């Protein structure tokens, strides 16, 4: 009996003394070239390799979100896909393009996770398995982003405008993986959403733009399951925790600090 009380009180003491939760403070803002960085470490550590560092911005300029997240089949959270070296070597996931044969923008894409690895291959492995390693990237963020229209937050790049101006041309079809022909589809119409907080401008949701980049099945029903508009209420608190809009707009797409990007209906 005494022992039980002892354990119970010890636990309470631990919880009382534990550090306070981190609400009400400003989080560290990732630098433009760090934004959208994903660290993948399901099996790398066990294979004695550094975890993989995936930078979204390079791929983002070349492909629509749909190509990777629907056609190739990547999940939307780090570690959730369960990519293995074998999968890559067989031509799936990263290996869909990183197979030593596919040509993108006139350059042959290097092979990821080949079946046989020699000592010379170490440099190639480090291109992805670079967490904590001093690896010089082939792509320089500054050179890349310099000609692109700027935005605040996130990568500091206005991806939408970049595409409009033709500075980036994201492909929406990947030979061997994609099924539908990309652009020949019915796009959805934009619509307005009323915010719960009075005084905040209405949200103009660019459904059209989202469909062009994501297709339908990326969001429905996994991220947005409501079938009737207006029935599901999204709160900023939920969004900031990664639900609904927050699935993308906290880590890869422009972050929530950019209020006016969504709350953009002119206030009368």
């Amino acid at each position: 009996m005494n022992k039980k009380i002892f354990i119970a009180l010890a636990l309470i003491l631990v919880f009382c003394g534990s550090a306070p939760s981190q609400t009400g403070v400003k989080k560290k803002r990732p630098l433009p070239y760090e934004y959208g960085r994903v660290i993948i470490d399901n099996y790398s550590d066990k294979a004695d390799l550094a975890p993989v560092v995936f930078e979204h911005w390079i791929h983002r300029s070349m492909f629509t979100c749909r190509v990777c997240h629907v056609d190739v089949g990547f999940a939307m959270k780090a570690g959730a896909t369960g990519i293995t070296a074998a999968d890559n070597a067989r031509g799936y996931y990263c290996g869909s393009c990183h197979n030593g044969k596919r040509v993108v923008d006139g350059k042959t894409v290097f092979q990821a996770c080949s079946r046989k690895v020699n000592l010379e291959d170490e440099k190639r492995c480090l291109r992805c398995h670079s967490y904590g390693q001093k690896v010089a990237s082939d792509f320089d963020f500054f050179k890349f982003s310099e000609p692109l229209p700027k935005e605040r937050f996130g990568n500091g790049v206005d991806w939408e405008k970049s595409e409009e101006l033709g500075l980036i041309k994201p492909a929406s079809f990947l030979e061997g993986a994609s099924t539908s022909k990309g652009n020949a589809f019915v796009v959805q119409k934009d619509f307005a959403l009323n915010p719960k907080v009075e005084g905040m401008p209405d949200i103009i949701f660019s459904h059209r733009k989202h469909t062009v980049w994501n297709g339908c099945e990326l969001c429905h029903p996994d991220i947005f399951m409501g079938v009737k508009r207006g029935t599901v209420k999204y709160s900023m608190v939920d969004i900031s925790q990664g639900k609904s809009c927050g699935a993308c707009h906290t880590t890869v797409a422009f972050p929530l600090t950019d209020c006016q990007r969504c709350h953009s209906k002119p206030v009368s």
Partner: protein
Amino acid sequence: MSMFSMQKGTRKNERRLLLLVLAFGVLLLENITSAQIYLPKSPPEPSEYGKVILDNYSRAGPGAVVFDHWLHRSKFTCRLCHVDVGFAMQAKATGIRASTNRQGFHCGACHDGKKLFEGKPIFAACSDAVNDQQCDRCHSLGKEGVRKYEYRTFTAKFPKGIYGVNWDAAEKSGVIKPVDFVEGLSVKKATMQSREDFALKAGYSWVHPINFSHEKHSIWNGCELCHPEIFPSAPKGTIHFSMFSNIEGRYCGACHGKVAFPLNNCQRCHPNGPLWAP
């Protein structure tokens, strides 16, 4: 349990239990009293108030960086540095390095040797080309006579409050004109509707409500500085925070107690007469 083992273990367990109850009691008491009458520590001298020592990487080289808020505060809005440039609001959280400065981030967003302020180029931070003298302008901890501006002379004409400069009054009187937009750094955004001031009910009946100057805060901070990270965008009244969390450096305490007027300055937020008046 046999009689014998009970006898042996009981006294030890009893002692343990007593110690635990005492420790628990002290902790509980401390929590209760701090929540009710905890007062924030007395702030440092006005010239030291808002001083940030940056000492993550500079120990091996030019020495720790001293950043005095008062100088930049007189020239720029909070929003410009904490939103447009992206400085964090906690020590060690931004990750400023000489390399990021040279790349044009953090301090290097303005301190690049090219941007002009009042017609003069701003000195480059962490530049390889300069002599040691320029390094000491920031890496000045423990060094005498290396800073260009001195608090007393710089703020001599600024209106003062109980704890140093009254920045609100300084702006109203036109002594300072904080800049909110820097070409090449800030992005022009559509202005959001001006936020209204509102009253916040205090947790205890003997404390007067807080007059929260939402409008003034929006002008200086924009929306993004506070929302959604410091104040989650939830309907008014749903997020509860206390003086205790303010003193910890959360919510209002993210600024007030560190850079903005300290929490000891009760009347600035609770203005309607003595706190204990009915």
